């Protein structure tokens, strides 16, 4: 049991990563990756909400009628997000201003709902908690990687601390303004997926060239 719990925790980090393989939860998060500190706050908020919601839903999974389960799940998630949002406003007001609407958008983050629907509804509390934590960590890993690249190349700093000396301060590094714009995040994730898939060939998608293969529409969001 302990071993399988551990695999729930570690699998989603690289092998079954929610962002690069399952294509979940990209929506609300990329906009906060212009600096490491916002990405870190967002990650912590998401891990908290994800773990708490998976735990709660798994705890009451036998009492949820299937016909209204989505409504119940959304309500639980939304309440937890409100708590996280108020918490941020109370203890880190500056940060909550910089994150603007994106903490609220955790409600519609497909990752949270997908873990609730596909895992927590069918499993006991402890595995659900581990699964949620693992997925949250996998998601945070991508978020932090993207944020590191963007902040380092876009502003020459990490966590707001200057790392590369800027030309405006007499150093040699000319910041790439492009890294602070939206398109760069798409490129970084695209390249990241390429890197992961060239190491792990089992994740490569089948070639659709014959075009007869029925494709699977997975409507998440």
């Amino acid at each position, binding site marked *: 049991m302990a071993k399988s719990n551990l695999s729930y925790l570690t699998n989603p980090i690289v092998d079954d990563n929610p962002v690069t393989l399952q294509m979940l939860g990209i929506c*609300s998060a990329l906009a906060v990756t212009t600096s490491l500190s916002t990405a870190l706050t967002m990650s912590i908020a998401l891990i908290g909400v994800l773990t708490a919601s998976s735990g709660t839903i798994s705890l009451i999974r036998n009492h949820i009628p299937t016909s209204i389960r989505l409504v119940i799940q959304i309500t639980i998630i939304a309440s937890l997000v409100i708590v996280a949002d108020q918490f941020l406003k109370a203890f880190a007001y500056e940060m909550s201003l910089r994150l603007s609407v994106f903490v609220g958008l955790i409600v519609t983050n497909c990752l949270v709902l997908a873990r609730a629907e596909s895992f927590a509804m069918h499993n006991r509390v402890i595995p659900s908690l581990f699964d949620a934590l693992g997925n949250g960590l996998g998601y945070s890993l991508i978020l932090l990687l993207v944020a590191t690249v963007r902040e380092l190349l876009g502003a020459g700093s990490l966590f707001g601390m200057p790392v590369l000396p800027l030309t405006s301060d007499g150093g040699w590094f000319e910041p790439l303004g492009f890294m602070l714009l939206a398109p760069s995040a798409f490129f970084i*994730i695209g390249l990241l997926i390429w890197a992961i898939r060239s190491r792990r060939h089992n994740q490569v998608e089948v070639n659709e060239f014959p075009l007869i293969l029925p494709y699977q529409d997975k409507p998440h969001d």
Partner: protein
Amino acid sequence: MIDLFFRSVFEENLALSFFLGICTFLAVSKRVETALGLGIAMIIVQSITVPVNHLIFQGLLMEGAWAWAGLPKADLGFLKLISFIGFIAAIVQILEMLLDRYVPTLHRSLGIFLPLITVNCAILGASLFMVERRYDLSESMVYGLGSGVGWALAIVTFAAIRERLRYADTPEGLRGLGLAFIVTGIMSMGFSAFIGIRLP
């Protein structure tokens, strides 16, 4: 007004510059027809929900909204998330029933996309932006329509590009999702070229 419309379509495109609704954007863009169906559903839902949510926020949740009941200091703003998502779900449900009753052909062609839209971050995102930027009623109508049109435009063009890309001989690891991200990035650059365009 027209300025706001074009700004929400191009410059502040929800999908390409705020990353909202990207999950659906990537998942439902393998064919132009399905993308078009989703885009139309999105325009309809978006242009209804943003003004309605505006009315809800002004009438029930904002600080001072309960002044007539003797509670001038009641600020229910923290409830906006849960009430917005509730009303979005309700509106989508009503719309689905209405379409099924009166325009069954459209209902059939939109298919599963209507219920899917409930949990699309772009809808909730637009409502939250509307609150944060303090749009008034007419502005929020324009903003709802504009952001819906912008999202639809983005997904239809993206689906068209992807249809062609299926024939391309791409590197193995890049096939599918990786390339989709990079194409989205290039499109996003294209859309950001509209920044700063103002009507005379």
